[in-house]
């Protein structure tokens, strides 16, 4: 029961028989007048719907196009299809259609992009329908054979039974006939309360190969005649290659070619990557470092600081009232300035891509969170037509948003190298140092919060001014243009409505953003803008509570009257951590809550602090209400892991800029939590249903930092207002 991937130069998963070749084969369109058409998988087995292939041996291949990077989406999506299909879970394997195949079939599989915690929440309905429709067709085929009404037949574990006669057949036996039936239009879905496969803590489908070294990541690809490339891009963002002398290294062991890549990078191609990297290090490259060559973190901070009091700012949330008047009339005013740094994703597997280019065909094999985005980049860089290009995704050694689609990134580079060596597969691997130098960094942001309390300590007004970088302005400028310069994503977690809305009801509220972009390229970093916005708002809530002389839990509860699900997760963590009872001696508690990606999350923690700076996080209770839970065991793992990612960011991680470039080069300067520092995480999974499915991979990260920051303030009386804590001499022990 493991996923299989093939890496042939020309992979054709789908052999299409009948007159209806080409378009029109997508879900719901495979109907007469063209007559029965059967689409076949590579092994000749019939496709029932685009999501389901049934093999003659009664095994099932389920198609997945969202990228698996550890978050478990592969298993979860397969559970949803299998649930509706009523197939035998022990006979399920996974197939991965390529973007090229999808393009050729009018995007039969929909969105490939895997970010924004969308994998399950935004494809659950159509993949479930793909499974349910296939079941209906298989049952109909059996009923047709027995000449009985389909309504008298039931399906379970890939076996169809006729109730009256007790006759039985298998999916494998009726698959050919089922594939020839028209796809039903009306496809009812099961009530999640009746789920037997989905909703259960089933084992992942991809573990076996991850414990014996046989899982193939992009880094591990091997192809006949393949060469390896090491690359160096101008360390100053926006800089260009001025000159280099290839002869300097062309005689070194294994070196085959030295090539310029675009206008800003140089690559050495060699027999092994080690030879390529060694030669690249010996090559002196003259850079035109351009206009950004002198910029430092202090310069960037100064620009952001100016934005905190700038006249003009884009409004993201103005939920009625008059915030100026409310703050002017407040009996107590609280003000604080917070800051969040650039951070690198630091995926365990550095960026890489393997490309083979000929004038007739260009294919990329490698890790991407967005197969279609990578397809578009290969298309553009290769100079070939869409039917001559394809992308083959592999297991990702971490993604966290880094392997989404960014302009002029690693996929484009690999194509530009391969193009200079037609016919030779080129595996381009970034060194860790290159990965640190050319991230797509968590955006840098500052925030000034001003809150007004009335005489009874009620929050009457809140102004949250963000100043800093926009991801969308760099990555999807068209979205920002359409909103007249505003980046809606900046307001994640503090928006007035939608999947990232602020859960608190504040009578007079204004959240605005002075956009201050930098030359450092920003990217979607697991959780994206909820990370800093949660640090800002959830730390400040504790500051307000303290100013009001109130318990931070009670203070929040009063503001959550209109958000019962937020109140639900907050109460759940408060109860489990024992908020109403005194903490053990020397132990201090903090909490935080947030809504993001349509899930409600909260965390409460217990910490102790030794010598004023050695923080031990003993215990974290985390609650999640994602609406629906497809695999509780995997959710528990995502939640626990979120604290590793979130607390590593809080304590250790900052990319500083000097002379226009990032200073940190490797994990010794950009630390990540180890097992000794890992707190015990107790997960409360409390899905409350409803019309909207929430995400899992990202939301919890954002409550990790503010919960611990609030506990730290309790423990020491010192409020820290910027990340990372190492800048204050604070250690995680």
């Amino acid at each position, binding site marked *: 029961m493991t996923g299989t991937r093939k890496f042939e130069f020309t992979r054709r998963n789908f052999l299409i028989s009948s007159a209806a070749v080409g378009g029109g084969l997508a879900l719901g369109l495979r109907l007469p007048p063209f007559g029965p058409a059967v689409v076949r998988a590579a092994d000749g087995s019939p496709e029932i719907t685009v999501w389901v292939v049934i093999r003659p041996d009664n095994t099932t291949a389920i198609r997945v196009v969202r990228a698996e*990077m*550890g*978050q*478990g989406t592969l298993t979860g999506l397969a559970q949803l299809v299998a649930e509706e299909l009523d197939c035998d879970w022990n006979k399920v394997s996974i197939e991965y259609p390529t973007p090229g195949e999808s393009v050729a079939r009018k995007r039969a599989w929909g969105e490939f992009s895997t970010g924004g915690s969308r994998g399950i929440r935004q494809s659950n309905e159509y993949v479930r329908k793909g499974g349910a429709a296939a079941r209906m067709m298989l049952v109909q085929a059996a009923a047709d054979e027995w000449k009985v009404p389909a309504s008298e037949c039931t399906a379970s574990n890939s076996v169809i039974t006729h109730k009256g006669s007790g006759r039985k057949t298998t999916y494998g036996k009726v698959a050919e006939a089922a594939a020839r039936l028209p796809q039903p239009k009306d496809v009812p879905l099961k009530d999640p309360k009746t789920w037997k496969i989905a909703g259960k803590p089933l084992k*992942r489908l*991809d*573990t076996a*190969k*991850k*414990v*014996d*070294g*046989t*899982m*193939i*990541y992009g*880094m*591990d690809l*091997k192809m006949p005649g393949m060469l*390896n490339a090491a690359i160096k891009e101008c360390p100053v963002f926006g800089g260009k290659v001025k000159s280099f002398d290839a002869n300097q290294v062309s005689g070194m*062991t294994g070196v085959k070619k030295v090539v310029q890549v675009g206008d800003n990078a140089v690559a050495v191609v060699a027999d*092994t*990557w*080690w030879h390529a990297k060694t030669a690249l290090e010996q090559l002196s490259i003259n850079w035109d470092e351009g206009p950004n060559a002198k910029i430092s973190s202090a310069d960037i901070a100064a620009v952001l600081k100016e934005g905190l009091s700038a006249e003009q700012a884009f409004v993201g949330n103005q939920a009625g009232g008059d915030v100026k008047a409310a703050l002017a009339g407040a009996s107590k005013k609280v003000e604080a300035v917070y800051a969040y740094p650039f951070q690198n994703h*630091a*995926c*365990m*597997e*550095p960026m890489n891509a393997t490309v083979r280019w000929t004038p007739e065909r260009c294919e990329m094999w490698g890790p991407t969170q967005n197969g279609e985005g990578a397809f578009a980049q290969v298309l553009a860089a290769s100079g070939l037509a869409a039917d001559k290009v394809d992308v083959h995704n592999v*297991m*990702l*050694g*971490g*993604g*966290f948003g880094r392997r989404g689609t960014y302009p002029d990134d690693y996929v484009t580079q690999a194509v530009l190298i391969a193009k200079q060596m037609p016919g030779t597969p080129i595996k381009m*691997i970034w*060194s*860790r*140092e290159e990965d640190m130098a050319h991230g797509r960094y968590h955006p840098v942001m500052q925030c000034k919060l001003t809150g007004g309390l009335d005489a009874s300590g009620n929050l009457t007004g809140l102004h949250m001014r963000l100043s800093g970088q926009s991801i969308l302005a760099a990555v999807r400028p068209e979205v920002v243009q359409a909103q007249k310069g505003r980046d809606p994503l900046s307001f994640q977690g503090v928006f007035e409505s939608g999947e990232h809305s602020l859960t608190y009801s504040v009578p007079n509220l204004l959240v605005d953003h002075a956009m201050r972009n930098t030359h450092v390229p920003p990217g979607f970093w697991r959780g994206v803008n909820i990370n800093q916005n949660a640090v800002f708002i959830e730390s400040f809530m504790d500051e307000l509570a303290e100013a009001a002389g109130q318990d931070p839990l009670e203070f929040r509860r009063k503001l959550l009257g209109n958000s019962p699900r937020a109140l639900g997760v907050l109460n759940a963590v408060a109860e489990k951590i024992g908020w109403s009872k005194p903490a053990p001696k020397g132990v201090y508690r903090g909490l935080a809550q947030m809504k993001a990606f349509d899930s409600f999350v909260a965390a409460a923690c217990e910490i102790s602090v030794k010598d004023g700076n050695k923080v031990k996080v003993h215990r974290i209770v985390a609650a999640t209400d994602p609406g629906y839970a497809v695999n509780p*065991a995997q959710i528990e*793992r*995502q939640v*626990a*892991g*979120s*604290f*590793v*990612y979130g607390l*590593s960011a809080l304590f250790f991680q900052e990319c500083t800029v000097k002379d226009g470039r990032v200073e940190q080069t*490797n*994990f*010794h300067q950009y630390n*990540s*939590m*180890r*097992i*000794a520092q*890992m707190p*015990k*995480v107790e997960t409360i999974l409390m899905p409350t249903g409803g019309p909207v499915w929430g995400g899992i991979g990202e939301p919890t990260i954002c409550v990790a930092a503010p919960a611990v920051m609030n506990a730290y303030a309790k423990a020491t009386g010192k409020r820290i207002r910027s990340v990372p804590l190492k800048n204050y001499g604070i250690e995680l022990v």
Partner: protein
Amino acid sequence: MRLTINGKSQDVDVDPTTPLLWVIRENVGLTGTKYGCGVAQCGACTVHVNGLPVRSCSVPVSAVSGAKITTIEGLASGKTLHKVQKAWLDHDVPQCGYCQSGMIMAVAALLKTNPKPSDADIDAAITNICRCGTFQQVREAIHMAAKVA
């Protein structure tokens, strides 16, 4: 140079300063051992040299000539998984899995010298980086494996 990897002795024609990691991956062709940092920080490249855990990215191949090297591919006995691999599988430890070869090798080496490690022992011995954050499951699975004789 002659290397003994997973019980198999073979000649490799490489510069003696080449890190063991890259010899294993590119010359011997075993890709289960991973490159993560190249500076002995992350542990993704952990292999056993004469039974001891070693970060192969920072060991020149010349230093291990004649030694007994075991990679993740050689940890199982034939088709029988090592008890650490078995615990990892039973407890669904890996997420992306990229660091797990190194993690498993580090844990297997720990259990060899300390069959029933305490949490403190684990904290001291296991210093590998996992960005997905599997540590809670890693700890639980170590204790599971330690119960197996």
